[in-house]
């Protein structure tokens, strides 16, 4: 069902060339995935934060990401039914809705976004990064699929640093368990030079991604780094990191964004070029996917552009300098996993958001708190207060959910946003922030 507030029909949605290219890439991946039973390709299910795509490709495995499947179900308005299906089967209303959407989808035949059945995984690569729910999620899937499960533990960066013990632990897990099991499942011998080659390609695409994300420092920003950012991160957070396709896509995107900067243009929204940039925001937390366009529209209708977001760092933080490094392949994969946003301590997250507000000259911080995501949500109220204190910029808090439509209240969210924009105006005019 479409919301009556969204005027444009799907065919009316304006997309720039990079978005169309991205969509084609994602579609081609789903074709490859759903075609695996015919092609004989083996499938590895894994997660976005700590995604080891380069390693997976070394074994000719196809990468399946249940989180992305849940997002696709949310965007297609199917997740609500799936979640209720899982709850009827005994899953609690309190827990992660990605998990329930995935399990509900499995119970209803595992039909992917291309309308074809997703294959059962040959291996569950449980890359445990920044979220304890992953651990339980794959225990639940293992019970159903009864396939080998490889566990990779990423220690938490609690003290704001990566220690030798953390790297050594992860490299040992790669050598002792992850790689031998992937060899066994795939029948392909591990070749570290092949991994190096993929990592070098990753680094190239990462350079261009960072250029694109940092283009938001321009005024107006040529991109929306949250809603639009989700398109931009799709290939590199998913099945394309380490590929030529990703290099081509990010180079193409970079050129497109540079052209927008040169032309003094703002972001492309589903309703076309955005008008005047009135507000520049930093956003913390994932978006709501069941009303994604409606949510986005609440921003661009008010002239609000998101210039930086934490969510677009959940599959890797590249803007502080990290790049996959072919000269130390396994250590580099470990460092990548350790550095993802949700694996960073709360003080690190605050530092990051404060830096974004300062460097991107934002008007303030907006937190979209997700009901079923404790990894992001626990502590966000303290984050909000601390960022406000350190930047002097107003912050606001809204609550939605990832893919459960029951927790998206459009009227409430819109009211909050409108009040927030008034707060920003008051702050600018020196009248202080209304209580």
């Amino acid at each position, binding site marked *: 069902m479409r919301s009556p507030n969204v005027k444009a029909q799907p065919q009316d949605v304006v997309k720039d060339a990079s978005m169309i290219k991205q969509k084609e890439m994602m579609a081609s991946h789903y074709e490859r995935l759903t075609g695996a039973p015919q092609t004989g390709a083996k499938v590895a299910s894994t997660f976005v934060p700590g995604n080891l795509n380069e390693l997976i490709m070394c074994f000719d495995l196809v990468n399946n990401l249940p989180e992305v499947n849940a997002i696709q179900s949310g965007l297609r308005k199917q997740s609500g039914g799936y979640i209720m299906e899982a709850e009827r*089967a*005994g*899953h*609690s209303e*309190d*827990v*992660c809705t990605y*998990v329930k959407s995935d399990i509900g989808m499995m119970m209803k035949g595992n039909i992917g976004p291309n309308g074809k059945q997703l294959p059962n995984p040959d291996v569950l690569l449980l890359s*445990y990064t920044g*979220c*304890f*729910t992953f*651990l*339980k*999620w794959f*225990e*639940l899937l*293992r*019970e159903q699929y*009864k396939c080998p*499960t490889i*566990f990779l*533990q990423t*220690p*938490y960066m*609690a*003290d704001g640093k990566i220690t030798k*013990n953390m790297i*050594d*632990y992860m490299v*040992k*897990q790669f050598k*002792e*368990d992850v790689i031998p099991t992937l060899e066994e499942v795939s029948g392909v011998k591990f070749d570290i030079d092949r991994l190096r080659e993929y990592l070098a390609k990753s680094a190239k695409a990462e350079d261009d991604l960072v250029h694109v994300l940092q283009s938001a420092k321009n005024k107006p920003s040529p991109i929306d780094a949250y809603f639009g950012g989700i398109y931009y991160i799709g290939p590199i957070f998913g099945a394309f990191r380490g590929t030529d396709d990703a290099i081509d896509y990010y180079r193409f995107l970079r050129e497109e964004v540079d052209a927008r900067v040169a032309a003094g243009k703002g972001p492309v929204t589903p309703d076309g070029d955005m008008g005047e940039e009135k507000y520049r925001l930093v956003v913390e937390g994932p978006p709501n996917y069941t009303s994604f366009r409606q949510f986005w529209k609440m921003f661009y209708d008010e002239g609000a552009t998101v210039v930086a977001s934490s969510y677009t760092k959940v599959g890797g933080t590249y803007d502080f300098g990290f790049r996959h490094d072919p000269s130390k392949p396994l250590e580099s994969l470990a460092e990548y996993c350790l550095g993802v946003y949700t694996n960073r*301590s*709360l*003080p*690190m*997250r*605050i530092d990051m958001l404060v830096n974004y507000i300062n460097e991107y000259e934002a008007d303030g911080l907006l937190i979209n*708190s997700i*009901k*079923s995501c*404790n*990894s992001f*949500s*626990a*502590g*966000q*109220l*303290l984050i909000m207060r*601390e960022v406000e204190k350190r930047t002097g910029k107003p912050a606001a808090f809204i*609550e939605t959910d990832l893919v459960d439509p029951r927790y998206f209240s459009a009227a409430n969210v819109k009211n909050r946003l409108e009040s927030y924009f008034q707060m920003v105006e008051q702050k600018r005019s020196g009248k202080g922030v209304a209580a």
Partner: protein
Amino acid sequence: MTDKSVSEIVARCEALYEDLNFTAAREWKEAEPGRKVIGYMPIYVPRELIHAAGMLPLGIMGGGDNLEVIHGDAYYQSYICRIPRSTIELGVSGRLDFVDGMLFPSICDVIRNLSGMWKMLFPEVYAKYFDVPQTYQDEVGGVFYTNEMREFLHDLEGIAGHKITDDDIRASIEVYNENRRAIGDLYALRAAQPWNAPASEAYLVIRAGLVLPVEEHTQLVRDYIAAASAEERPLKDNSRVILTGMFCEQPPLNLIKSLEMSGCYIVDDDFVLISRWLLGDVPTEGDPVHNLSQAFLHRSMSTAAKYEPDQAEKGQFLVRAVQKAGAEGVIFASTSFCDPALLDRPILQNVLKQAGIPYIAFKYAENSGQMQPIREQAGTFVDSIKLWSAA
């Protein structure tokens, strides 16, 4: 033989349980200059290392149902469990102002993030996220964990102002071995004679171990066992059940009493899991840190916050617990919004279903006040167990 009665021992334990100013721990600290107290949250930290540093490990299980949370709610959305908000309340209200350090074990995203919040709210206090391995090979998870413990020891030496020797740690391991043995005996007594050692009493006796020096607590457990064994209380026509899911946020005492009143003999549980986390004695010969690591890897309890690498083994701990305690059913009691317990529950329920073990499930919070629905649900469960048994 002790000369203390059950009621005297239980009254003391209840007073300790209700004391949210942690007077016993404060008095311990004040008794000698230079003493230090290190707080820890559920589920597990190696208390032996803290003890070896000459410090008092202090278990913080939230604020229970007697704490009015005023400030803590301002830090959390409505959809986060209660233990972090009541723990923050304890902190900001000054009830933990005598604590020299706080440990936040690796259990879930909420407690993990609380470690960072603590660093920000109480920058003068040592705060550590205590990471543990979820992989159990000696050369992989074992080495990681040993190094983490050594780093923690180094921190403790800094707080204590003196070195901690291997002999110190060995002596502490022995003291905790004695405590684990005593607690094992208490659980065995309760499983054998739940009418003489009801769960509501055993719980209070175990809880006292969070705030007392371990040596004193071991004696207290022994005193209770002796006193409870000497009494002969009436046997009721109750059903024997196991409680599971309470490994972090603890239930209100009234909840345990309500289950007993509704006809349950609770013959095993996962309350205050740290007191029984390591199974059996930890060796006191050789490298003590290595021994603690080995015990964690190979001889520790199963719970939702711990990864089970073997699908065939998943949930079997519960089946074995049912068999060992002669239980007739399992009650899944999970804290609202507890991801580990609630995500694990369907898997465990499937295991029980296959084993033909009946179960029910409900949720609670540490401050749940309305017990009537739980009493009715548990009473119906007990009745149905009796009906099935008679069939």
